[in-house]
Each structure stands twice: as C-alpha cells, then as structure tokens.
C-alpha cells in the first residue's frame, strides 16, 4: 500500500520542520515543472504502509497570485494527493486558518497539525483541539515540530485518514452569510446538473463568486458553461450589491468571519504575563539606531567566515588536487589523453571545486539567517535602499555576496519570493565585482598606475555598483516592468534553528551546486583545453631549438673560460706564495680566489637558467599564438581594436570567461613568464608596459574586465536560477555590450583629450 501525502501551510508555520520530522533525511529537491519553485519530496514507512510526502511551498492562500500559490493549487486540484496535511502555527491561529478554509473546500481528506503548541501555551492560548476538529471536520493533532513531540500520533492519524473510508468523507462546509450561501447554492446546483464529473463543485461555485480567472476558464469548457458563467455574473452582481465590495473581498471577509466564530468556541486566551521574546530581540536588532550597524556587523562576519574560514579547507583541496594531478600524470605516459584528463578535466573542474568550502559555509550561514527568522528583518531594514531599484529588501543579501563570488550569490537569490525579483537580482549581480577579478585589477593597475592603484581599484568597485543600480533601474522600467509586487512581509517570531535542518538546507543547495556546476564547468574546461591543445604541430618564426643550443653553448664556453682563468690565477698566485707554515690550499689568498670563483660560477649558471627559462616561455607564448586559442584571439582582434586592445587582450578576455582570474595566468603565458604567475609578477608587469599598452588602454581593459560576460560558473548559475536560456544569453549579451560601450568610451574620450597616453 502506498499513499501520497501533501504538506501545506503558511510560510513560517514550521512546515519544513514537520516535513523533516516525517521523512528524515530521505529527501529529494527538484523544481516544479516550468517554474523555479523548489519541489521537495521524501517518504517514510509507517505500519507497513509507504507514504510519499510532497512539501508544498508555503502560501497564505490559494488565490494563485504567486508562482507558489499556483503550484499548490494545481497540485491539490488534480487528484495526486491522497491526504493533505495542513500545518498551522498554533500561536498564530486566525491567519493560518484562512488557508485551511480553502483546503476544506477543496474537499480532500485533511489532517490538521497544530504546530508550535509550546509557543501558543507561552502566549497564554489554550486550544481545545477536539472542538476545533469538530468545527473543521478534520482530525487535529497538536505537535511541537522542533522537539518531535506528537509526530508519532500524527503518523497514526495520517494512516487512519488514508485508509478508513469514513474518515475521508467530509461533512463540514465553511458556512457563509445567508445571502452568499444562497448564491453558492444556485451555482452549485447548476454545475451539478450540467457536469457530474466536477468533484469540487462547491469549491468551483465559490471560486466563481470570487471571479477567479482560472476557474472561469475551466467552467467555460463544461456543458452549458456559458449558462453557468451567466449565473455567476448575476450572483456576483447580487452579492456585490448587498455587501458593497468585490466578490472576492466579500468571500475573504466571510472566511475570516467563520474563523472568528470557530475560535470563539475553542480558544481560551488567559491573560498570562508572557514575555514576547521576539519583540524584545527586535528592540535591538531592528532598532532605529542600532539596526543598521548590527546588520553591517553580521554581513561583515558572514563575509569573514565565508572567505577566511573557507580558505583553510580551500588550501587542502588545492594541495590535494595538485598532488592528485601529479600522481595521475606520473601514472600515465605523456599523451593527448593524459593532458586532457590532467590539464583539462581535473584542472578545470578542480578550479571550481576549490570554491566548495566557501559555498557550503555561505549556504550554512544563509540557512542560519533564514531559519532563525533574521532574514525577514534584513528585508525590513534594507527595503528602503533596495526599493530604489524596485527590489525587495531581501535582495540586498545576494548583492553584497556578489563581492565575494557571484556563483553562490546568484544561487542565494532563492531567498526572494517573486520570480521577477529573482531574475532582476540575478541579472545585475555579475556587476558586483567578485574577488576573482581583484588579481586582474592588482596586476594591471599596479603596472600602469603604481601611485594610484588603490584609487583605480576602488573606482572599479564603485563603477560595478553603479552599473548594477543603473541596469536594475533600466530592467525594471523595460523588460521586467510591472511584475513588481507590493512589499507585504511577515516578520515571524525568532526561532532557535535545529542543527539538523541547517545541515539539510546547506546540503540541498550545495548539492545543486556540485551537480550543475560540475557538468557545465566540465564541458567548458574541455573546450578551453581543446583550444589550447590543438593544433599539436605549430610552425614558429624563430628556431627555438637552435637558439636554445646556441645559448647553452655560449654559457658553456663562458663557464669554461671562467674555469681556466681561475686555474691560471691560482697557478700565478701559488708561485708567489712563500710561507711554509701553512699549505697554499689553506692560505687566505687562495680561499679568497676560490670564493670569488664560486660566486662568479653561480651567477653565471643562474643567469643561464634564467635565460633558458625566459626563452622557453617566449616559445610557449609563440606557440599559444599559433594554437586555436591564439587564432581565436586574432579573429577577435579587429573587434576589440577600437578599444585599443591587441590579440593578447582578446585571448586573455576569452580565457577569462572560464574564470576571471585566469586573465592573469594567460598574460603570464603570453608574455613568456610562465603560467604560474601572480599579480605581483615583475615579468608580466614589464611585459605589459613594453607591449605598447598605454595607461588609458589599461584603464579601458580594466573596465571591460569588470563588466564583461560573467565567468562560466556564473553563467551556469544564471541558467540554473532563471531556468531559461533566454535570460542567460541576455545576461551574456547585455554585459558584453555594456563592457564594450564603456570601455570604448574610456578609450575614445580619453584619446580625444590625450589623457593617460
């Protein structure tokens, strides 16, 4: 035997806690088809019966205003679920029961869970669960989700409602005022006469009185649908005439009327001297003066923890990875396959795997902020600022996280409820300058603006913020217009999060990162590897083999020269040496000569290896120019020439698409200093300076680096969070266009006035 259970309830009612308590860790996270609303499912066994559980998104109503509400309604209206478990925050009964009235009307077998009974007791609320059950016509189970109190009883009730026919039948209707009830009756009859297949005919009637669009579209397909809709129109006019309001508002008020009536019969509110802890905490955390500084402190701590704490395991992964790559390349003979595996696959995917600690720590902190209830306060505190770009206050968190890394930041946009807000935040996030761009700034600004490097870098960060704000304003007035929702936000009571749910949340999101980023990064890394590996045979202008031979010969002869000079001076010296007390080889004059010789010899051989290394790197640079990647750079050179860029910048920017910090190592290769350079490398700095790049072009290059197409991992995250390629390609195209325009503006106007040339 197997039953489908759907868990429904308001946001912040502890729904996920109950879901976790029911299913344990056996959960799967996916998306509802067509929308980026998380779909969580799990299962459990109880007395030889299997229960598949779906955790529906938290909603206040089934009005289908939001993507979440639509998902819940569609799922409940089709007949997949055998039993609906409605979680209710017992300390906030009245508003929570609003959804319940709708669930009752949907007519599904229902089990009502009074969660957070402990908090209700603290508030001085005594709830008579049996009376409530009678009034609502469904079993009511009091539980405390956090401690697991009452969960076994809940499983028992779910089993009984699933299996016993008598408990499935629903006898209770939400009763409405007489004038409404008579109109419902008329519609109800008409629907039953015309379409016997409609199992929710009372629900349909009520929805028609609410002028619900979806229901009207469905009824239109019924037999005599037009008649029913005509009657609906007449009925709505009648009740609107009586109650002087719109049909839906009348029905909603009537639902609350029913709830208030029910609560009068089953809730006793004793005047206990309870302390509202949440309110006390908020006296500090959202205080007029302290609210912002404390939030700032929390943000700083989050940053610190994510990047500092994360850097420790990051080093381990890095070390492990290098060892692993060496181990594999030691195992395999040098071949194309070995290069693909080591440099392409392990190197490429590894470059992203290094970020895993950061991402997990960040998701853990976000889970902490969400589960504790502080996230709602963040929205409260920051809404005034984010409202400027017509965003919800919560959107601030992903924006600030973008300074660290855009990938977790974009995944963090899940905390936003409206899809439009999510997309807008995702699209402007890449302009927040992530930490991977910093090495590029340090290198280029250090090379061309040694005295003002800090100012230049700071200006780039500011430019990024301005680009984000400007684009946000632009998008909200054009492509994402009119989808904005009013700010209606519940500030739920603070809760002590359970470790288990924190880890579950962290893992769910982190796993998505591993899964999706892994595939895209893998493909991208292989592509870049292919571009850099082929063609395997290249023709070079210079004969490096003979140059190397000449160089070696040259130094060898210099070394031989040095040695013979030393020998002859020693001979000369020995003849002039007369003391018989000490052997010549121990004399001070010999030791002096010997030391001199050693120094010269060392200097010469280190000079030799330097020269050979430099020659080798020039060769690598030349080879790169001939590889596909260099040819691609050449192809794009005409496009970037108006910006003052050469094929080198073009290659650097293309490889920067994999990860922006790669720009630095690409320059290392191109200027023949080696791949293994950091932003302080003198070779690259002098290479850049002597390449003919002017400070103005350098500035333009920095602007371009800041704004252009986000890295591959970010693109993957954008695809994942917006769910469409359309927004992904838009984001790529838009940022390229913006980068090009602004970089061109820098080069062009700077050139006009002969700045920095």
């Amino acid at each position: 035997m197997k039953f489908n259970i759907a868990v429904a309830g308001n946001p912040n009612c502890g729904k996920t806690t109950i879901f976790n308590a029911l299913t344990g860790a056996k959960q799967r996270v996916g998306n509802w088809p067509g929308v980026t609303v998380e779909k969580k499912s799990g299962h459990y066994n109880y007395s030889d019966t299997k229960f598949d559980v779906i955790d529906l998104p938290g909603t206040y109503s089934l009005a289908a205003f939001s993507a979440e509400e639509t998902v819940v309604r569609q799922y409940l209206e089709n007949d997949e679920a055998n039993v609906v478990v409605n979680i209710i925050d017992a300390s906030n009964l009245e508003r929570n029961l609003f959804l319940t009235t709708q669930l009752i009307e949907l007519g599904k077998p229902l089990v009502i869970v009074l969660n957070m009974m402990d908090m209700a007791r603290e508030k001085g609320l005594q709830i008579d669960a049996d009376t409530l059950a009678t009034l609502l016509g469904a079993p009511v189970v009091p539980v405390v989700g956090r401690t697991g109190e009452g969960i076994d009883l809940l499983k028992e009730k779910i089993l009984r409602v699933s299996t016993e026919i008598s408990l499935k039948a629903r006898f209770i209707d939400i009763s409405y005022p007489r004038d409404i009830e008579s109109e419902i009756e008329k519609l109800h009859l008409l629907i039953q006469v015309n379409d016997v297949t409609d199992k929710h005919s009372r629900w349909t009637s009520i929805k028609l009185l609410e002028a619900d669009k979806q229901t009207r579209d469905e009824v239109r397909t019924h037999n005599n649908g037009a008649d029913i809709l005509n009657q609906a129109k007449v009925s709505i006019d009648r009740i609107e005439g009586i109650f002087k309001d719109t049909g839906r508002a009348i029905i909603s008020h009537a639902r609350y009327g029913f709830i208030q009536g029910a609560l009068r019969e089953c809730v006793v509110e004793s005047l206990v001297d309870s302390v509202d802890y949440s309110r006390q905490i908020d006296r500090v955390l959202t205080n007029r003066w302290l609210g912002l500084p404390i939030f700032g402190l929390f943000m700083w701590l989050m940053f610190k923890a994510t990047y500092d704490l994360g850097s420790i395991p990051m080093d381990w992964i890095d070390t492990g990875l290098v060892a692993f790559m060496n181990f594999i390349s030691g195992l395999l003979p040098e071949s194309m396959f070995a290069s693909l595996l080591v440099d392409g696959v392990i190197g490429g995917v590894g470059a992203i795997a290094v970020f895993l600690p950061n991402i997990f720590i960040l998701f853990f902190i976000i889970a902490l902020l969400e589960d504790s209830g502080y996230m709602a306060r963040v929205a409260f505190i920051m809404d005034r600022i984010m409202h400027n770009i017509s965003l919800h206050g919560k959107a601030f968190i992903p924006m600030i996280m973008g300074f660290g890394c855009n990938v977790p930041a974009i995944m963090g946009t899940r905390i936003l409820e409206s899809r439009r807000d999510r997309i807008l935040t995702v699209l402007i996030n890449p302009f927040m300058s992530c930490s991977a761009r910093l090495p590029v700034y340090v290198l280029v600004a250090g090379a061309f603006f040694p005295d003002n490097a800090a100012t230049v870098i700071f200006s780039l960060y500011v430019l990024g913020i301005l680009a984000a704000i400007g684009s946000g304003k632009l998008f909200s007035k054009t492509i994402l217009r009119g989808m904005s929702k009013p700010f209606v936000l519940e500030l739920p009571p603070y809760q002590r999060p359970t470790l288990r749910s924190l880890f579950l949340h962290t893992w769910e999101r982190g796993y998505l990162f591993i899964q999706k980023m892994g595939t895209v990064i893998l493909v991208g890394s292989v592509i870049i590897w292919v571009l850099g590996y082929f063609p395997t045979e290249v023709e070079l202008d210079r004969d490096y083999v003979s140059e190397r031979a000449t160089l070696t010969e040259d130094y060898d002869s210099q070394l031989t020269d040095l040695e013979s000079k030393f020998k002859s001076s020693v001979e000369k010296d020995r003849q002039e040496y007369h003391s018989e007390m000490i052997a010549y080889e121990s004399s001070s004059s010999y030791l002096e000569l010997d030391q001199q010789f050693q120094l010269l010899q060392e200097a010469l051989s280190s000079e030799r290896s330097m020269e050979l290394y430099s020659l080798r790197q020039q060769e690598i640079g030349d080879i790169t120019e001939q590889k596909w990647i260099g040819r691609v750079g050449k192809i794009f050179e005409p496009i970037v020439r108006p910006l003052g860029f050469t094929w080198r910048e073009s290659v650097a920017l293309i490889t920067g698409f994999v990860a922006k910090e790669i720009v630095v190592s690409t320059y290392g290769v191109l200027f023949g200093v080696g791949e293994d350079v950091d932003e302080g490398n003198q070779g690259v700095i002098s290479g850049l300076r002597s390449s003919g790049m002017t400070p103005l072009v350098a500035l333009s290059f920095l602007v371009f680096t800041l704004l252009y197409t986000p890295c591959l991992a970010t693109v993957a995250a954008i695809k994942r969070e917006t769910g469409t390629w359309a927004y992904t390609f838009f984001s790529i195209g838009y940022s390229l266009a913006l980068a090009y325009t602004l970089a061109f503006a820098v080069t062009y106007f700077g050139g006009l006035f002969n700045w920095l040339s």
Partner: protein
Amino acid sequence: MFNFKRPRHKLHISDENDLRLSDLKPGEKGRIIEVGGSESFRLRLIEMGLTRDAEISVDKYAPLRDPMELIVKGYHLSLRGMDAQKIAVKRIN
C-alpha cells in the same frame, strides 16, 4: 464575455478620526475601515488578515523610516508607507 476588471478602489475618508494607516505613529492603534489600492493588493492584505474592523497597531518604523512594522491578528507584518497610505483606519485608544 464579461469584463471582470475593476477600477482601483478609492478610499473614503470622511470622519476626522479616520485617517490613513501611514499616519499612525509607533505605539498607536487603529481599527481598519477599509483597504484600498489595486484589487490584487487589497485581496492580498485581506487574506493576510487586514479585514474590516480588525485591530491594527504600529509597532515601529524601520531604521531608514520605511517600511513600517505592524501588529495585526497577533502577528507582525511589514508594509511600505506608500502601501499603508491605501489603508483607512479609525484611531482607537
């Protein structure tokens, strides 16, 4: 077939004790007369418990003066001042 679209709901503020929710100061209480604004906004708020005659009090304003924190039906809700302007209340003590 039918036009179910409705015009925006206009607020009727006549009594001098009647004011907009946005005019209440922290600590003050009111009784909701009606919620105006677009139909979807009104319905959302009614569904969240801002029903006619419901008691509502202003707990505080956010550090940057907007939005505001309200208490209605025993829970805390936050609205922007521009949205609170669309709600007519009668001040009570």
